């Protein structure tokens, strides 16, 4: 982020141009349908939040440098060049008003994957020095301290001791040869210690070996949110090094959407090689344990429960069925929202928006979409699987004076773990 300049930004953007981008820009007919797919537009009515409009400077650079008519226009001096002022004006559109949720990519009639391009556009924005302060801060902390929120190993160890006292179970740090390497998000360490308690109990009950690395316990990746691939790669590499050093079979991404995206889908591409281990989201692991019969559950919740799909996990990450399989086993009154699964609506705070104070007011407006969805079905409890969604949902519900508890799915399942005494004789 040091030495940022317009030229560096444009160069970074040029490096992002590829065949899909050219196919997408070539195909856009400006029909405007992506606006209706974007909660920042639907909840504010501001046309600037139309997804394709958020890409306008990138589109012009593409047109002027990668198409014949654009080059001719440029040579004749008829093309308006992309300027620093313009990029600065686009900052709120690209960072505050986009959670990288990808709903636009699902709706576009010509098939444009708009969020694929916004992710790329952020590389140019960051290199040109137009990333928001909040995200720069988070990214700097992530590089220096290992955590975007400045959570240290000591803080995690203190929490682990608490959990050990509470559960009477050991939390294994740096155990070589464990099956699972469990990662955390800073948000969980600070706000939701129940997650660590839940997996400790679940893994113990399932009889699986697991560990936490004291060298790389943070799963989140500010690098992909701000759009600096070098930093994103460095953060992924820390996890890769730890996982390979401990020779684990599977790295478990915590209840966090973009951490999963960073490790599972972007990770190998960022570091330039495939991994010697698998990356799974905690819900994928839990669903496997359920199928293997290692996750004996008892009791059912009787309130009307629904599931909020974290975008990076579901629509962009492909973990669609596991949360449903799991929730159905413990929620007698599980109801889906009207748009759910891959067509879900974002909570309004993903993609770095929650780390960006400039977007605070806007993200609470964007939450109104979720509010209406919850009201439509009369939900009494909201389950999710992303700490970042969870804190936004809690804040949004509170701001709207709605008394709906928000629960992490892993924690809900841990609450329903069958007591060990009843285990004998169970076969399912």
């Amino acid at each position: 982020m040091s030495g940022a300049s317009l030229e560096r930004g444009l160069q970074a953007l040029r490096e992002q141009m590829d065949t899909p981008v050219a196919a997408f820009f070539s195909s856009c007919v400006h029909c405007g349908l992506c606006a209706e797919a974007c909660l920042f537009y639907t909840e504010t009515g501001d046309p600037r939040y139309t997804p394709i409009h958020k890409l306008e400077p990138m589109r012009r650079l593409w047109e002027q440098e990668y198409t014949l008519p654009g080059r001719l226009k440029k040579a004749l001096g008829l093309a308006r060049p992309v300027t620093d002022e313009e990029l600065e004006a686009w900052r709120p559109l690209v960072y505050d008003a986009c959670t990288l949720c990808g709903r636009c990519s699902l709706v576009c009639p010509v098939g444009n994957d708009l969020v694929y391009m916004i992710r790329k556009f952020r590389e140019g924005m960051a290199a040109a020095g137009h990333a928001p302060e909040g995200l720069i801060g988070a990214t700097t902390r992530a590089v220096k301290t290992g955590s975007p929120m400045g959570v240290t190993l000591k803080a995690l160890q203190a929490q682990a001791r608490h959990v050990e006292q509470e559960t009477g179970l050991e939390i294994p740090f740096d155990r070589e040869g464990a099956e699972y390497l469990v990662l955390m998000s800073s948000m969980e360490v600070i706000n939701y210690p129940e997650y660590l308690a839940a997996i400790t109990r679940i893994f113990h009950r399932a009889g699986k070996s697991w560990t936490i690395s004291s060298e790389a316990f943070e799963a989140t990746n500010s690098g992909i949110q701000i759009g600096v691939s070098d930093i994103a790669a460095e953060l992924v590499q820390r996890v890769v090094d730890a996982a390979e050093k401990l020779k684990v079979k599977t790295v478990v991404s915590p209840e966090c959407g973009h951490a999963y995206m960073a490790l599972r889908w972007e990770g190998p591409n960022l570091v330039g090689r495939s991994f010697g281990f698998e990356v799974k989201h905690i819900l994928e692991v839990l669903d496997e344990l359920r199928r293997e019969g290692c996750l004996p559950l008892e009791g059912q919740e009787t309130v009307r429960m629904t599931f909020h799909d974290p975008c990076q996990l579901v629509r962009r990450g492909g973990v669609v069925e596991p949360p449903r399989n799991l929730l159905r086993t413990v929620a007698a009154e599980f109801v889906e929202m009207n748009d759910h699964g891959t067509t879900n609506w974002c909570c309004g705070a993903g993609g770095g928006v929650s780390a960006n104070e400039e977007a605070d007011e806007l993200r609470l407006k964007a939450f109104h979409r979720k509010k209406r969805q919850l009201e439509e079905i009369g939900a009494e409890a909201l389950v999710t699987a992303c700490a970042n969604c969870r804190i936004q949902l809690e804040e949004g519900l509170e701001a709207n004076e709605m008394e709906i508890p928000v629960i992490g799915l892993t924690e809900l399942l841990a609450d329903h773990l069958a007591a060990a005494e009843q285990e004998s004789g169970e076969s399912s």
Partner: protein
Amino acid sequence: MDAAELLLWARGPGLLLAVGIFLFGMLLKLAEILLLGRERNLAPVRASGVGAGFRTVFRRSFSMDRSSLKTSLFVHLAGYAFHLGLLAAIFLYTPHVQLFGALTGLTWPALPSPVVDLLTVIALVSLMALLWHRLTTPVLRLISTGQDYLAWALSFFPLLTGYMAYHHLWFDYDWLLAIHILSAELLLVFFPFTKLSHAVTLFMARWYNGMMAGQRGVQS
């Protein structure tokens, strides 16, 4: 130059020129897109993405999202009406089928002319409604560029002049036919260099979208 001479030029050298520019332009367009290349995905995939890619190519012709169908019913209806009318007029009108047959050796059944006539009217009305929509809704006013209006005009005039020629409206038939053919040739010439080429590139766009999502286990 009189009408007969213009018609002769439009049918002969004009057509060849237009088709030539169209073909050259499309090759260039595809090269501009494909030569950029794409980095190989190193993340282990859930599926090859090929099936999902083809399904997205097909499925995106039908709106799958209930919310946007509800909020943008007009764009959907007018969009379908215009596209279907335009495609029918181009590819299913008897004289056009004969022309394609003469140019390529391929023929296919045509629709009865009165049906094409009706579809043309529907397409013209839809196009006018879509233009009105573009000029009056804040989102479209913001995102529309000169090219959007150019593409509109290039699509509208062949339909309008074709309709007028078919009904022998107001002008001498030879003039109308010559102008109709020239307007279609203009459409061909501009096609590769404007967003009219979406008619071809959207298959690539849908493919990449569907394939990349499919590799992650999502049908987009």
